[in-house]
């Protein structure tokens, strides 16, 4: 009984985004006979997995009240480095993959250090990293794609287990891990605490700098994983991969109901957010809507999601508005 209640409870919290996803699904089923087929659904999963995986890491960052604009560039640089290690240096696939993932993590740690030690605003430091990482990808590859990746590496992006694409499996694993980290460990708990009130967290003895850095390392790591999957699927690593990716990732998190002001948000929401974006893209493709209009429509969806977040916040602040202004008066007297 308790478990059922718990499930109800957590589903209830995702209701907004989940309803949106289901509604979209119904609309698309009616609009296009090609939508509700196994192949197409698996296709959506594969397409969504990149954004979804990076969004899992981004959820942590946004919960701390930060933002990471560098995920697209980190995706590109780590995939280029991995490909380079395998193709030019003949590294073992496993070793190269681990190297690529760690490279992403290290880039994230650099973001974290800039943000906590200097300290720079997350927007600025990750904007800088966005340029630097992208630039290094160009320098490293000299602007040319790296082809000829090993077969076993391509499995990351193109593999299938039965009817299910391997990236979708990686996506599920990512979300299981992140759910655990966010809800069961200190990392998640402190992310919520310092996003909700950093001063209170510091005064409670929490090493906020350390935990913030970990959180940026997580986004770097998962952005790199997305990069490896993309390289596997394209059979190439390029320095232009993931251009504009950060906006899709942030959009998925925001559509999933995580508040940009920090302290609130859930990991499952980000998965649903990424799926919503996947379904919309796929559906618009099926309906032969031009990619130019797709941009407009996705932009509108982001605006809608943020509006919902802001309105939600305003209405909850109104409840305490009278009380807090009263205390402010008392204090100033």
């Amino acid at each position: 009984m308790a478990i059922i209640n718990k499930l109800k409870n957590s589903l209830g919290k995702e209701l907004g985004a989940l309803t949106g996803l289901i509604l979209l699904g119904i609309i698309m089923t009616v609009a296009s006979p090609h939508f509700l087929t196994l192949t197409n659904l698996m296709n959506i999963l594969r397409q969504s997995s990149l954004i979804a995986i990076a969004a899992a890491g981004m959820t942590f960052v946004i919960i701390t009240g930060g933002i990471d604009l560098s995920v697209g560039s980190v995706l590109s640089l780590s995939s280029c480095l991995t490909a380079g290690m395998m193709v030019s240096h003949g590294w073992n696939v496993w070793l190269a993959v681990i190297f690529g993932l760690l490279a992403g993590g290290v880039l994230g740690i650099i973001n974290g250090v800039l943000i906590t030690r200097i300290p720079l605003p997350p927007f600025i430091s990750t904007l800088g990293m966005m340029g630097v990482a992208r630039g290094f990808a160009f320098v490293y590859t000299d602007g040319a794609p790296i082809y000829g990746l090993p077969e076993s590496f391509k499995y990351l992006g193109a593999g299938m287990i039965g009817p299910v694409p391997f990236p979708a499996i990686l996506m599920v694993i990512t979300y299981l891990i992140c759910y655990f980290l966010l809800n069961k460990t200190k990392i998640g708990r402190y992310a919520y605490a310092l996003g909700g009130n950093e001063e209170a967290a510091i005064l409670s003895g929490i090493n906020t700098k350390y935990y913030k850095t970990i959180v940026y390392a997580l986004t770097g790591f998962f952005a790199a994983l997305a990069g490896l999957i993309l390289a596997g699927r394209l059979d190439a690593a390029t320095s232009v991969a993931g251009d504009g990716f950060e906006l899709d990732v942030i959009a998925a998190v925001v559509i999933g109901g995580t508040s940009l002001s920090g302290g609130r948000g859930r990991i499952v929401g980000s998965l649903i957010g990424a799926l919503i974006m996947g379904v919309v893209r796929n559906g618009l493709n099926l309906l032969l809507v031009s990619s130019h209009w797709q941009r407009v429509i996705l932009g509108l969806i982001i605006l809608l999601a943020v509006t919902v977040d802001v309105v939600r916040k305003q209405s909850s602040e109104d409840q305490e508005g009278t009380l807090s202004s009263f205390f402010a008066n008392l204090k100033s007297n």
Partner: protein
Amino acid sequence: MYGYLCFVVSILSFKSENSLFYLERLGEFEAIKGVFTMNTNSILELSAITKKFPGVMALDQVDFKLKKGEVHALVGENGAGKSTLIKIISGVHKKDGGLIKFKGKEVEIKGPKHSRDLGISVIYQEFNLVPYLSIAENIFLGRENTKAGTIINQDSINQQTKKILTDLGIKLDPTTRIADLGVAMQQMVEIAKALSMDSEIIIMDEPTAALGESEIEELFKTINNLKAKGISIIYISHRLKELWQVADRVTVFRDGQYINTHLIEETEKELLIKEMVGRELKEQFPTKSSNLQGEILKVEHISRGNQVKDISFSLQKGEILGFAGLVGSGRTELMRTIFGADKKSAGKIIIAGQEVKINTPRDAIENGIAFITEDRKKQGLVLVRSVKENISLTDINQIMNGLVIEADQEADLADEFIEKLNIKTPDREQEVRFLSGGNQQKVVLAKWLIRETKILIFDEPTRGIDVGAKKEFYSLMNELAASGVGIIMVSSELPEILGMSDRIIVMNQGKIAGELDIDAADQEKILSLATKE
């Protein structure tokens, strides 16, 4: 005869500054002075002003009269109603009852803009200046002279500013950026701004709080200058002594009520203090038996910049040590320094006989210190998270099993303290922002009690809490002390200090002004130490 005089006076006082000056000279004659005080000479006349906030009567039928060209000081303890009155005059709050007469005519002040249009300016402790704009741009912000609708006529505002500054006797270039000015000069810019709006009443809230001695002298000169121009000033200050240098009259408020008005030369500091504190201790403090069990904390020569100057004291187990003083006397800064939230520039902290290194709050916490901050919403609680998560925040390790937070243990821990401290919440998952002030404060306390705490620092523990919850909180503090915890309590409420403490340290301008044993302490002694210069 009286009627005739009033008539003449009223005509003259509206006519011109010169005739007014003449009348002021005449005012030295007693007979006419009487007429002045009683009738038309009041530029602002408040009668029976009442203002209620939920649960608090902030102002209860208070009267206040401001004469043209006088400096009228307004004094009272924290919570006496001074700020509320100012906010009503300046249109920030609406009065619930009473009458406001401005220049003899009844007015209903509709809002801050209306108040400014009437000629009333307020200079708050926190200045309202834009740091990277020039003096002139600040003075004319929102009232720029424009050419062709939008282009600012820079020359014109610079010239006008120059003239106002010269009038005030200030040699400053109107194009200087505010950020390049010191506090005293910024204050002058605020005054100049008020003058540029043709203000006839200027309200100054603690104008000397941030100034050095020579700057204060300059300010007083300027105030006299303003007075000579016929501008009336409402002067709020905690520093009673300076009133004899600057004020003409002084009005005392206490607990939202009007107490008395004196000509400054006819009163003295002791009398004002008596009128300010005059109330009896209410029966709200539970009785307790103190049981001091040896020294737990010793602070030696702690300093931090200008705010905390060479502080030494000691604290016993089981003791409640009260820290009294004016707002801004350095008490909070001292506590933050002891707790490692701010870095100390000198000094030692000794806990249970051992010197300890405290550089961060984490160091302090690990040494058994807890700090219940003065602003629970900004510094104490993560408002958007649950009661449960807030309680376990300071010591999550005790409910960890390897990497995992044990949900059941955490729930038990939260429930234990919800029950122990009688926290009124629907359940442990409730977001803290929905609790009342008293219950929020209990959550803050709970989050420290889950640790083994030897020293508890309370900063304004009952601010914004209703009376019932206060009493409950006091009992909790006494229980904690009885269990052997050493407690430091910073409070600006004198009854609280006197009702709860075993010993009282009074701070004044970053230093310890004196220490009083509870049996020897009373409100007058504390206030006179706190306001001593």
